[in-house]
Structures are given as structure tokens and as C-alpha cells.
């Protein structure tokens, strides 16, 4: 009998636990001291403390995670995303310990993890890549030579990079030297490796990715595209599937290339090939993420495939339950990432108590979260607290649905980006479906001061509230009964 340890926290840990429950597999949560009371801890069948709040000593500590697996008898480790999910040597430690890592082999992780290696491997496999340097740049002189060859503008990127760090756009030759030094410094600081490479900058690019799935029985399929161009500081905030306006011909060509790319590194599991797409729909390989993506729900909503269930099936040695011929995209899906950050203060993280937290529910809506009302959003980890996704038969209906849902998302106590999300999905360019990675920069800054009416209504509410507080005690959250809450508290006490 298999047992799954989830080496992660927050919404993705809760998401994986849900898949375990659906497959009838027992689940083990791990937690740091900052997360002892977190939702994923009481959602799992068992929970093990793995260290203090600092990630390096808890969620990022391979030995501690493996010890937890050993202590609980877990046979599978699902890494989620981030933390140990793309760590090839952790994968090898799992193999040595006789625990199955839910993800690709260490060969694929290494080939794709080092960006310059990935570029060369993809080129050799016939996958289109952006023109640029052959492998890492040895020195500044080589950078100059490559730039003359491919022409400006160019992008400088960290070889060991990811998440938008260590990236510089260079418009002309006189900017190159400062950018070269800056990118190297940032790469050294973030990835302990100053190596950078050069790619030709694609103007007004779209960021479109293809979901792939491969099992240990020789089957590799793609699950179509996700449009991820709505980004702020190179971080995705809204994703949708299918990509609006992309021709079906390009979509299928990208899918085929993605399958080719996955096969080239003997990929097994769920993975994502990210492409840059120019205004003429020429597409170029950017990178492969050898793990489950944050934005996987939009693919699940339009294809009806549970990617985490497939990951677990594949890890247990079973064939995937889908084939390319049976896969199709049905309707449209949009995901919005809700971050605990303050748009009025440059999107600074805004940790603190979630005094009000009632996500919307309704037909076609999906909420992936790892918090409940009353939780404290920790300053130790990622600021993303929830993903709100909507599905509808077509894109206009889907936009209507996600806007209505965002509008009724009750949240208070921390600052958050919901107004910003509404601004994007309500913008002319987003609604027209003609946007690129520059869309967020075109929006005016937000300012939200209460209107006169709101002052008056607030007073009425405050006075009414005073009267009410004398007679009414705290109301239980609408989505949980007092019995369920009491049972949970009893469960936590005995743990």
C-alpha cells in the first residue's frame, strides 16, 4: 500500500492532499514551526514537524524530509512546486533511500534545470530556440560579439536562473556592459552562479506554455496551451486556457514540439514547456519546468484531467489514463492569483492576520487555497494565498464569471491584490484578448479612498454593529458547521 508525503505547504499541499484522498491514498503533511496550525496540517492524515520557520531548515531540507518519510512509512514524496521540486540531487537521495519522488528522473531535471544546457539540448532535438549565445558567456568580449551577430535588443539571463531573477533587457550596445555586470551580480546572489547567456529580445512577446504528461510506458501527450502573459515584474498573476487569438494551427504545432522536447530528455511525469510567441506567432523554446505548475488548474478545467492524480498514478508505475486522441479543450478557463501584498505601496508583501476570508463559491468556480479565516499569513513564505479560477463555455462568459467572483471575494485584515486583478480582467486589452507581457505596465495606478456614501454607510454599519455585538456571539464560517469545527479542534488537541 502506498502512502504519500507532501514536501510542501500552503495551497499546493492542500491540492495534493485532495488528490490523495480521491485516490484513497493516505497522506502525510510536513510543517515548519510557522505552519503548525496551518490548513494543510489538519487536512492530511498525519503531520510531521520538519524544522523551524526558515525554509532552508525545514521545507528545503532534503535529509529532514526524507527522515519524515522514513518515520511515517511514506512510499511517495510529492514535492509540489518550488522548494525541492526541481532539485535533481534530492531526487537522487530519494532514489537511494528507496522512496519514489513524484516527478521526472534526475537526468531530465539536470538537462532542463541548467538553462544553457537546456537550450543546446532543445536545439539538437529540433525545437526552435531564440537566437543567442552558444552556451554560457565566457567574458564581456564574447557578449559583445554575440550581440553584434544577432542584433539588438537582447536579453541577458542567468544560466541557473528562474522566476525572473538575473534578467536584463539591453536596447543598445552602450547599455551592455552595465547590464552584463548587473545580471552577473544578481545571478551570483540568487543562484550562487554568476554565469549568464544572451538571447535576442522578442518585442511584444506573449508567454504561452504547453502542459505535457509522460508515463513510464512510453506515452507522452500534451494538454494544450496556457496563456501566461499577464505578469508583474516577471511574476505571473493571471493565466488562461486556451490562449486568446492563437491560431489552432500554431497551438497544435506548439503541442507537437513540446512532446518532442519532453521525449528528448526522457521525461516522465507532468511538466511544462514555456514558449515566447511573437506577434506573427513564431514561437521559441524558453524553458521547461520539470514539475507541477502553479497555474495547472486552468488546464484541468478545460481538459477535465486531474494532473495531480495522473502524476501519482505515473509515479506508482501505472500508465496515464488519457491519450492524445481523447484529449480536447472544452470551454475557457481563467485563473487569478491572490497575493497578500499591498498595491498602494509598490506591492510590498503584506503578512498578518486574515480577519475576514470568505472566497466565492458557485458554478464554474474553483478556489485553491491553503488558508482559513483567522489564519496568520506568515512572512516566511510566498505571498500567494489563493488561486481563484473560473470556467465557462466561452471566454466572454468566463471573464464575466471571474469578475463577478472577484467582486464577491470577502477578504480583510491584510492588504491584497484583488483590485489589481479586477483592473486587469476589466481592461480593454484583456477583454479584447489582444495583449502581451507588457499589459500590466499599461494600467494606471490604483487609488481607493472611500466615497461619501461609503462613509455614511460605514457609520450606519458601525452603529448597527455595536447593538448587535451585545446579543450575538461570533458566527461560525458559512462553509463549516459548529460540529465540524469542534471535531477539528478535538482532533488537533490529541495530535
Amino acid at each position: 500500500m502506498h502512502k504519500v508525503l507532501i514536501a510542501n505547504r500552503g495551497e499546493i499541499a492542500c491540492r495534493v492532499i485532495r488528490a490523495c484522498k480521491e485516490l484513497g491514498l493516505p497522506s502525510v503533511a510536513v510543517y515548519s514551526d510557522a505552519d503548525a496550525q496551518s490548513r494543510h496540517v489538519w487536512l492530511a492524515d498525519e503531520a510531521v514537524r520538519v524544522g523551524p520557520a526558515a525554509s532552508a531548515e525545514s521545507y528545503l531540507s532534503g535529509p529532514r524530509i526524507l527522515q519524515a518519510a522514513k518515520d511515517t512509512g511514506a512510499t511517495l514524496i510529492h514535492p509540489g512546486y518550488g522548494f525541492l521540486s526541481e532539485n535533481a540531487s534530492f531526487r537522487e537521495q530519494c532514489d537511494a533511500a528507496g522512496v519514489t519522488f513524484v516527478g521526472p528522473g534526475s537526468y531530465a531535471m539536470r538537462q532542463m534545470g541548467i538553462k544553457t544546457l537546456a537550450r543546446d539540448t532543445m536545439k539538437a532535438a529540433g525545437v526552435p530556440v531564440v537566437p543567442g549565445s552558444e552556451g554560457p558567456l565566457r567574458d564581456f568580449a564574447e557578449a559583445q560579439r554575440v550581440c553584434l551577430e544577432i542584433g539588438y535588443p537582447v536579453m541577458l539571463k542567468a544560466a541557473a536562473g528562474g522566476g525572473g531573477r538575473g534578467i536584463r533587457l539591453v536596447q543598445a550596445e552602450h547599455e551592455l556592459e552595465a547590464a552584463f555586470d548587473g545580471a552577473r551580480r544578481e545571478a551570483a546572489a540568487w543562484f550562487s552562479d554568476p554565469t549568464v547567456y544572451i538571447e535576442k529580445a522578442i518585442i511584444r512577446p506573449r508567454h504561452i506554455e504547453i502542459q505535457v504528461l509522460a508515463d513510464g510506458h512510453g506515452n507522452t501527450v500534451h494538454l494544450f496551451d496556457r496563456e501566461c502573459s499577464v505578469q508583474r515584474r516577471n511574476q505571473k498573476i493571471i493565466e488562461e486556457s486556451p490562449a486568446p487569438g492563437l491560431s489552432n494551427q500554431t497551438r497544435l504545432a506548439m503541442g507537437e514540439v513540446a512532446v518532442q522536447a519532453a521525449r528528448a530528455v526522457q521525461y516522465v511525469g507532468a511538466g511544462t514547456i514555456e514558449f515566447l510567441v511573437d506577434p506573427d506567432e513564431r514561437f521559441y523554446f524558453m524553458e521547461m519546468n520539470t514539475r507541477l505548475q502553479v497555474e495547472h488548474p486552468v488546464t484541468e478545467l478545460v481538459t477535465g484531467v486531474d494532473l495531480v492524480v495522473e502524476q501519482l498514478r505515473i509515479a506508482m508505475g501505472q500508465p496515464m489514463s488519457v491519450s492524445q486522441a481523447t484529449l480536447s479543450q472544452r470551454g475557457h478557463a481563467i485563473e487569478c492569483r491572490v497575493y497578500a501584498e499591498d498595491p498602494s505601496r509598490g506591492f510590498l508583501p503584506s503578512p498578518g492576520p486574515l480577519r475576514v476570508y470568505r472566497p466565492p463559491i458557485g458554478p464554474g468556480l474553483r478556489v485553491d487555497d491553503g488558508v482559513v479565516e483567522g489564519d496568520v499569513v506568515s512572512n516566511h513564505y510566498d505571498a500567494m494565498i489563493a488561486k481563484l479560477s473560473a470556467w465557462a463555455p466561452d471566454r466572454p462568459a468566463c471573464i464575466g464569471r471571474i469578475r463577478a467572483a472577484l467582486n464577491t471575494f470577502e477578504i480583510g485584515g491584510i492588504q491584497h491584490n484583488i483590485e489589481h486583478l479586477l483592473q486587469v480582467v476589466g481592461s480593454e486589452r484583456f477583454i479584447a484578448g489582444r495583449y502581451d507581457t507588457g499589459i500590466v505596465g499599461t494600467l494606471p495606478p490604483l487609488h481607493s479612498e472611500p466615497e461619501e456614501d461609503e462613509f455614511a454607510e460605514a457609520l450606519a454599519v458601525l452603529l448597527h454593529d455595536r447593538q448587535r455585538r451585545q446579543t450575538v456571539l461570533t458566527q461560525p464560517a458559512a462553509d463549516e458547521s459548529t460540529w465540524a469545527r469542534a471535531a477539528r479542534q478535538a482532533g488537533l488537541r490529541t495530535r
Partner: protein
Amino acid sequence: MPTEYLLEHGTHHKSVTVLEDHGDRAVLQVGDRRLEVTLRTLPDGRIAVSQDDQRRLYRTFRAGEETVVVRGWTQHAFKLTDARERWLHGTGGRHGDSSGRVTASMPGRVVRLSVAVGDIVAPGAVVAVLEAMKMENDVRSVGGGRVTAVVVQEGVAVESGALLVQLEPIGVE
């Protein structure tokens, strides 16, 4: 008896006057706008505020001296003060509120009324005694003021929240 309140929001503040307050219905004045609103507490704890053509749903929570009013994803922290409270230092009491309404804190029987129309009541003074579950409980006013109406008689049974005595503020200046 209009009552003026000061609502502070960050560096902004606005004066809002309650022209009428009937508990579930109130008439407010802000600037030159007059608003008539009805209020209802929903089972999930939200307060529904309705005007002619719109309804908004609010939640509140306390954060230090401020009360945060949450509507959907918007939240605004307000500090509420009113001239009468400041003058009389009427704080703390549990049975009543600053609108001058002294209400029953629980269902019970009125066993004694300590005030009559025209009396001047100090903040926190006992205005009535309620009996519930064989226990007698004092009902105190929050603010002070002059009694304008005694709504119940001794011996009657009242529901929780029922108005017992109405006070009006005494001029500040």
C-alpha cells in the same frame, strides 16, 4: 435628535450626522447628501445596508482603536467619535449604545425601572433591572443624557435587544 459623528479614515475625516435612528432604519446626512438606509444582520454575520437602488453587504472587525469595515474585497479602517461621548466620557457600559437607546441585553422580565421621563442619567447608571433565569441583572446606559421616553412598564416580558428607555444628549456648549 440629530447626533453628529466624526469618522476618521487615515488622514481623512468626515462628519456624518444621524438624523434618525430606528435600529433597522436610519437617516444619515453627509455633506449635503441625505441617505435613508435600512439595516439587517444576515445569518452569516454580514450586515446588509440597503438604499433605494442598491444593497451592500458589510463585515466588521476591531483592530485596536479602529473598526475595519469590509465590503467584498474592499476594507476601510475607521475611528468613530461623537461629541456627546467625548463630553460625558461615557465609555464601557454594555447595555445600550451611543444613539441614546438603552436596550435589553437578554430576554427577560422588567422587574424595576429606575428612571422616568425628564430624568438626567449619568453614563453607566442603572436604568432598569431585568430578571432572567431567576437572576436579576442591572441594565446600564452607555452614554448619559435626558430621558425622553420609557418604552416599557414594570412586570412586562421583553425580547433581547428591545428598547427600554430612550435618552437624548444634553447640549455640549
